[in-house]
């Protein structure tokens, strides 16, 4: 038991620790202004984030992130199911969606500002608009790849409409949907940062940009560190969700390995 715990710990922190050590080693002998030593970053981290910034910057960011991410997931799955199950609709809309998908957020944001102002709603819109794609594309592909025998079975037994969606389409596509959601998670964080670079006065991204602009480089790195930690923490949470939603898939895929 203890051995398994130790191994899990090693897996979680082994590589990060090694990388940090590398940073430590190289930063210590570089005199570049832009690579502060790990010491500086860590002390900046403490000073910067264990302060009122938690409330002023981190919490608003997290709120936008949560709303934006959930919005993207809901929208992505909805669109994905629609496009995945209706070939004609997909043919009609795919080019339009691909068009928007290719437009960089820094260019898109000004346009969005025209419609949604410069408040939180704009930032949430940016997060949604940017991170809906992995969810949507994966859902489309997941829905398209539903096993034909399974689909026939559902049709025969009159499993249509909402029940079909809930009992067949979503579960069957869930491995792909979850893969898309995982992608979208980090993209949401990135877009949270990018959206907060525009018309903002609070937020994690805002803070990082300010640090960058005011040449507070250790603080900036500490912000990036925080982003990474945030991503890591959220991915752990996500892992819990994943193991609930996909436990059948795990089981199915590992069933032949026997134990575990």
């Amino acid at each position: 038991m203890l051995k398994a715990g130790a191994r899990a710990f090693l897996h979680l922190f082994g590589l990060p620790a090694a990388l940090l050590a590398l940073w430590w080693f190289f930063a210590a002998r570089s005199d570049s202004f832009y690579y502060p030593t790990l010491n500086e970053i860590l002390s900046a981290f403490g000073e910067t984030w264990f302060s009122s910034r938690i409330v002023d910057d981190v919490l608003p960011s997290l709120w936008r992130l949560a709303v934006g991410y959930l919005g993207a997931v809901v929208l992505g799955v909805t669109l994905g199911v629609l496009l995945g199950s209706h070939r004609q609709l997909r043919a009609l809309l795919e080019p339009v969606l691909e068009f928007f998908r290719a437009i960089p957020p820094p260019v898109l944001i000004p346009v969005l500002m025209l419609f949604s102002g410069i408040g939180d709603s704009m930032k949430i819109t940016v997060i949604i608009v940017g991170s809906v794609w992995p969810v949507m594309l994966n859902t489309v592909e997941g829905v398209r790849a539903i096993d034909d025998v399974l689909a026939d079975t559902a049709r025969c037994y009159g499993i249509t409409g909402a029940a079909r969606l809930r009992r067949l389409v979503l579960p069957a596509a869930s491995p792909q949907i979850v893969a898309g959601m995982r992608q979208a998670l980090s993209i949401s964080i990135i877009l949270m940062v990018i959206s907060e670079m525009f018309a903002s006065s609070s937020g994690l991204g805002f803070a990082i940009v300010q640090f960058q602009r005011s040449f507070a480089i250790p603080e900036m790195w500490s912000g990036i560190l925080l982003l990474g930690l945030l991503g890591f923490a959220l991915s752990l949470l996500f892992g819990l969700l994943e193991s609930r939603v996909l436990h059948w898939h795990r089981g199915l895929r590992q069933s032949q390995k026997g134990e575990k």
Partner: protein
Amino acid sequence: ACGSDSGGGGKSGSGKADITLGVIPIIDIAPIKLGVKKGFFAEQNLNVKLQESQGGAAIVPAVVSGDYQFGYSNIVSLLVAKSKGVPVKMVSVGARASDDELDDGSGQLMTSSSSINTVADLAGKKIAVNTLKGINEVAVRTSLEKSGVPGDDVSLVEVPIPNMPAALKSGDVDAAMMGEPFVTVAEKQGAHPVPVSYAAMGKQMPFAGWFVAERYAADNPEVVKRFTTALEKSLRYAEEHPDEARATLDSYLKLDEGVSAAVTLPGWDPTTSRDEIENLAKLTVDAGLIDDLKPLDALLDQ
């Protein structure tokens, strides 16, 4: 990459030197374009290449790393950078405020709201600035304090300058600190200026400058010298021939018909005096962006 001799970036001496300048595509840098065209840099045996970036995020590291030899920035950012120990120093003034605190092409507060006419009317309002913790913030806070309004009695938000007219019109912000050509654009759309501007901080006050990496300046004093000489000549020429400077604008900006004739040009007197810059530095200290005047000395010294 341009130029044939191996001195790219140039060792000191009077040989031909390739230099790359990091600039922002705004009207302030018209003299350089003009100067290059006029051959003032070639006279100094300098082969100049201009690299346009969006702002300090790319220019400062590029200068520090030696990818660019000279960079253009507002002085407040340079002071802040210096206060954090960024190894750069300023070699010349780049642009100055105008004489009219209601007509400054580089930094002028505009509003569409008819109820805002004086600085005092701004109390409690939302103001868009290009970058927080930068020169615009200093300008706004300084003007407010001067008018007896507490400097923090407004909320500042960051909006890129090109988006300011739209933000003004939609009422997302009450006023916006913008530069040309957007001052002219906003004016055409019915906005009017409020006496908050670079000129309001000090008429003809230098607000932007050219900087080099400390190491480069130490290794290539000769090139720096030649650069400043050519630069001075260019700035003076532009100052004295505003029509030619205006004509230059159309060569690197894609302005609408007639805009280049209408925009307000900044001042370009290159004379660099510590006192003038110290004024701005003091205001920067007052606004809380730097602690004291030490960065100023470091920026100008040697």
